Each structure stands twice: as structure tokens, then as C-alpha cells.
């Protein structure tokens, strides 16, 4: 079934000095699949996408993208792919139309073909009326939509999107999701997306690989990944103090499959969370604790991440954002 593989990655690694940004990663993506890479900033997503799109040479391992090896035949790979990098790369001094037109010329498209394609894509992303304005006058959301439309001018076989909605407000994010949803419906394109938004991966991707510290820690459809962790709901309790007695009593309850404690927060993987919440709170009170707040939610990919790493993806973001602004910091250092 080699023919159906759009991307085939075999033990790929990238080291910057002693730091392994991507560490022996292997996976396959089938043609027409919407594949997601989920992980916090600094997990290695951008490094991986840069290797797959020929911007970085792997330290070891190999990858075949659109039937060509990224290290041996990068020019052939570049002809078949479209890439939306994490940073905005459109020229501010050019209009939206000019940005797309020049991009089309980079791929050797002829004038008429470019004109038709650009008009269609501008309409698709809702920028028809702004196409001849300078990109410098666009909002962040408009610019991101333009960048996605731009890489579709040459009808790539595989579309790579590196954190396509980072920095966008929720409304703009939903506009981009809707647009990507349309793409899946209209073209049989393979889409490879990296994100640290669980909702994005869950909404868009048919399969998701979860990556942390350069390694894949879980891979499957969102439902498969969630099915792989115990229980079906998560109860999160905030208490005054998590004592030995509290954790001990809760751990003995038959409907509690797993508990993760972070300071004064208790996260319990349970069956039927809404029904079992009162019993759980009673146990805390009997153990001498006071419940300050309680929430019940269905398992999400965030919970899958916590299950495998013992830490929250949101906490990881908060820690890293204060040190690294934007994508690819380790890569820049490694230049």
C-alpha cells in the first residue's frame, strides 16, 4: 500500500548541539488524510515540519514526502507541497493579489491560470474585496487566511500548516477552521497540521500524533486516543489541601480509575462523572477536606496529554511562552 502513503517518516531526528529537538520519530500519513501533530511549544513540531518541507536537513533518519526523499530530492518535494509556516510570511509592501500572483509565478503558473485560481481562492477565504489592498492594512486573521490561500495557488498535493491559528482571536480561528474544513470536502488533499490547541486537533484531524520533548507519545484518531485512557469523564476538584487521607479515600472508590494531583487540584479519571460527583465530594469532606470548586467534563485530548506526560499542555505553554516568543527559537539558534 506504498502508493497511498503521502508522507512516510522513518526514525527521523534533528539535533541542535546536544539538544534533540526531534528524537527518532516515525509515522505514516495516507493520501487525503487530515493529520495533526499536537504538543506544546518547544515539543519539536516546527522542527519536524521544517524537515518534512526541506527547510532543515535531518540529523538522522529519513522521510518521504509525496514519493520523494526530503534529503535526496528536496526540489521535487517542494514542487508538490504547500506550506503555511507559523510566522506570517506574506510581503506587507505588496497587495494580497500580488502576493498570490508572485507565489504562483514561483511555481511557473501561467497568467490566465493564476488569475482564475487567485480569484477563486480569494473568494473562498472571503478576501475578494480586499485583494488589491496592501497586506500591511490587513488584520491578523485576514493575513492568515491570505497565507493559506496563497499556498493553494499551485494546487499542492500535500498542505503543511504550522500552527495556522496561533495568535488569532477565537472568531478568526473558527473562520480558518471552517475554511480548512471546506478544503477537506472539496479537494482530496493531504493536510498535515501542527497545533497546540486541543480543540483544533480534535475538530479537524482524522488522526493525531501527540508529541512531547521531541518524541511521539501517542498516535491515533481523537476517539482512539481518548479511549486509550481510563474512564470516560474527568472530575476536577480544587480543595484547600490535598492530604494523604483524601487521595487515599478517593483512590479506593470503584468508579475512580486514575488520579492526577497538581498542588491543590485533584483530577480524577472516572466513569459517569455527573452521577458520581456528589459521592466524590462527600469522600473529600469525610476525609477532613473542603471542596472549593468542582467541574465535570468529557475526556479531551488535553486529558490524553496529561495521562501520558503527567502534565498539562496549558501549563507547558505558560512556562515556555515566557522564555520563547514565536516559533522555531531552537532552530534559529542552530542556524
Amino acid at each position, binding site marked *: 500500500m506504498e502508493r497511498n502513503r503521502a508522507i512516510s517518516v522513518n526514525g527521523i531526528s534533528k539535533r541542535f548541539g546536544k539538544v534533540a529537538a526531534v528524537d527518532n520519530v516515525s509515522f505514516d500519513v495516507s493520501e487525503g488524510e487530515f493529520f495533526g501533530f499536537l504538543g506544546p511549544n518547544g515539543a519539536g513540531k516546527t522542527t519536524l515540519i521544517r524537515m518534512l518541507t526541506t527547510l532543515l536537513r535531518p540529523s538522522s533518519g529519513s522521510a518521504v514526502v509525496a514519493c520523494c526523499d526530503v534529503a535526496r530530492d528536496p526540489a521535487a518535494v517542494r514542487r508538490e507541497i504547500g506550506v503555511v509556516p507559523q510566522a506570517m510570511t506574506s510581503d506587507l509592501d505588496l497587495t494580497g493579489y500580488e502576493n498570490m500572483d508572485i*507565489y504562483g509565478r514561483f511555481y511557473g503558473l501561467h497568467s490566465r491560470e493564476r488569475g482564475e485560481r487567485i480569484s477563486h481562492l480569494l473568494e473562498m477565504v472571503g478576501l475578494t474585496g480586499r485583494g488589491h489592498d496592501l497586506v500591511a492594512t490587513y488584520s491578523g486573521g485576514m493575513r492568515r487566511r491570505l497565507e493559506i490561500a496563497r499556498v493553494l495557488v499551485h494546487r499542492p498535493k500535500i498542505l503543511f500548516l504550522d500552527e495556522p491559528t496561533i495568535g488569532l482571536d477565537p472568531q478568526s480561528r473558527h473562520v480558518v477552521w471552517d475554511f480548512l474544513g471546506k478544503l477537506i470536502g472539496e479537494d482530496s488533499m493531504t493536510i498535515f497540521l501542527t497545533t497546540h490547541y486541543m480543540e483544533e486537533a480534535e475538530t479537524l484531524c482524522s488522526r493525531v500524533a501527540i508529541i512531547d520533548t521531541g518524541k511521539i507519545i501517542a498516535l491515533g484518531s481523537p476517539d482512539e486516543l481518548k479511549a486509550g485512557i481510563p474512564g470516560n469523564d474527568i472530575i476536577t476538584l480544587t480543595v484547600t489541601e490535598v492530604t494523604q487521607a483524601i487521595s487515599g479515600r478517593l483512590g479506593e472508590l470503584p468508579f475512580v480509575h486514575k488520579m492526577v494531583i497538581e498542588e491543590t487540584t485533584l483530577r480524577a479519571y472516572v466513569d459517569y462523572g455527573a452521577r458520581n460527583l456528589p459521592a466524590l465530594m462527600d469522600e473529600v469532606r469525610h476525609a477532613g477536606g473542603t471542596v472549593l470548586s468542582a467541574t465535570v467534563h468529557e475526556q479531551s485530548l488535553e486529558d490524553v496529554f496529561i495521562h501520558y506526560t503527567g502534565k498539562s499542555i496549558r501549563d507547558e505553554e505558560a512556562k515556555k511562552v515566557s522564555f520563547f516568543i514565536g516559533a522555531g527559537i531552537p532552530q534559529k539558534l542552530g542556524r
Partner: protein
Amino acid sequence: MVRLLAVIDRDLKKFRRNPVVLAMSVLMPIIYLVILGNSFQGKLTGLPVAVVNHDSGPQARRVIENLRAVAAGPETFSLSFMSDRKEAVQGVQGGRFKAALIIPPDYSRRATVGGRPELGLFLDNTDGISSENIRGLISAAVRAARNDYVPIRDPRDETTLRDIDLYPKVDYYQSLVPGVVIMAIFLGALTTGAFNLVMDRFLGIDESYLLTPLSKSHIVTGLIISGLMITTAISFFIFAVSMVITGIPLSRGVEKFIPLSIVIILTTLCLLSLMFVILGRIGHPRVVGILSGFLNVILFFPSGAVYPVASFPAWLRLFARINPEAYAVDALKSLLFKNAALVNVAGDIAFLFCFTAATLTIAILVFKRTL
């Protein structure tokens, strides 16, 4: 070809939409011409000189008359007569005077009877150009004072040197024009071509074309060609304006348009390619800022644009032999001032061509297609 034209078109569009860069590229070399021309060619005037005369004899009077003639004619000096020698010397030390001339009481008597007459001249030699001028003029005034008659005819045994200028007179201001054109080319080559790549890299937008099928040579030659178009247009404009400002007949430029164009285009290509070799892997415009001053000094000053190469020490002359700007200045001067034909500057053109071919090849080879 479509791809190469797209790279050129993108760069030209961006340049057109930055009128400040365009205006600066045109104005800077012209301002340079005006400042350099006026600061170096201007005569020294009004240098304050103190004179302390303790001698009332005829020789002292003649010296002072000659000095007054300089002060009244070319106005190189402004003389202040003082009686206190110490005050005059302190005036030089304090910066009030550039020099103090002391005429001792027995100067005229010694000059008349042949008793080794001496004058004291205290100079502020921290300002070398002014002090040498003063020294020369005062020496001349003293020598002239000792000739107490004017010869009716030249002595028969004295050789007369009749000098013949081979070319029309070129004043200092005009002689700077080739240098100003080279300066315009240098600035153009520095702010287009490779610099746009540095800016794209700095802004992170280089990924947008590194991810496309553009080859190394598309990117490098495309940026060089757009830089060539911009820089050449600016250089021709500056050339014409400089000729008008300095009074070089425009007809001379028209007569030599083809060889001048060849030299300007080749020099531009040469410097654009050199910039690509130097800046091709730089990712921050600050580095370009630091390098620009250094490159300007090492390329422009040893080019002979301001001062003749013959005045350089041996090691600097050696550098001038591999400095493309030196060949460009030589070619432009020959075409503009010596009425030379294309064949007369073939050597300069051959060097510029070889230098361009070598640097362009290196630029494409060392250009990094990945991050």
C-alpha cells in the same frame, strides 16, 4: 524564466513602495559630493596669526608688509599685532591663534650685515594642514623680503619649464564626479540585492520563497538583477546631476554614453555580487550597518576617487590592485576627462568582468537554500 522574473518583479515592487529608500539612495551621494567637494577643495582663510615685532628696522617692516599682503589678498591670515611675546605664545597654546611670529630686535641688522638673522615661529602643529600652510606662507614672505630689487629680465642661464596640459582643465570638484558615481553604486549595491535577502531573513519571510521550487540561482540572480536595475538607474541620474553641479559638459557624457554605461553596469554587478558573497548568510540588518562603514572605507578610499593611488604605501597599492572600485574610478576618469575610447579602458573592464564572474559564482555556491 517565469520564476526569475517573479523574483525581480517582487523586489522592484517592494522598492517602489518605499519612497524614503529611493530618495535616500539619490540624495546621499549628491550630499556627499557637495560636502566632500567643499570641505577638501576650499582654501584656508582667516587663520589667526599673532605678530610680535621688536624690530623697527627695514627688513622687519618688509616682512610685515608681505604678511599684510597675504592677509589682504588671499586672506589666508588675519594678523594680530602684539607687544608681549609671552602673551602671543600663550594665545597659540590657548587656541586663540594658529601661530605666533616673533621678530627679535636685531633682525634687520643681522639680515643686513649677514649675521644669521632669525625669526621665531610658534605653530599649533596639532592642525597639520593649517600649520604647514602658515609655515609655507611665512617662509615665502621672509624670502621675498630679502630680495630688495625686482629683476628687469630673467637671468639668461635659468631654465624655463614650459608645462603643457594634455587634457582640458579638471578642477578638484569635477575630479570627484567618478568617485560620487562609484559611491552611488556602492550605496545602491548595499541597500538592494543581498540586503533584501538579509531583511527577508530578519523578518522571517524568506521561508515564503525557500519553500517554493525557486533554485539558488533564481534567488541570487533575481535579487542581483533587480538591484542592478535600481542601482544603475540611480547612478545614471546622479552622474547627470553631478555633471551639472560641477560644470562638466553633459555632451561629454552623451558622447561616451556606451562605454560609460558598460563601466557603470559592470561595476554595479561587481559590487552586488561582492555584497552577496559577504552578506549572503547574514540574518540581521545591524550587521549590515556595521559592515557598511567598513566596506565603504576599504573600497572607496583606496580607489583613487579622492586621492591618487600613487600616494598610497606599497601594501595599500597592492590592495588597490584587487579593489574593483579602483578599476571603476580609473575607467570613469579616463572616459570622462581623457576622452578615452572603450579600447583604452579594456583592461579595467576585463578586470571588472572577471571579478563579477568570480563573485557571482561564489555567491550562488555559498547561498544556503535551507534555514
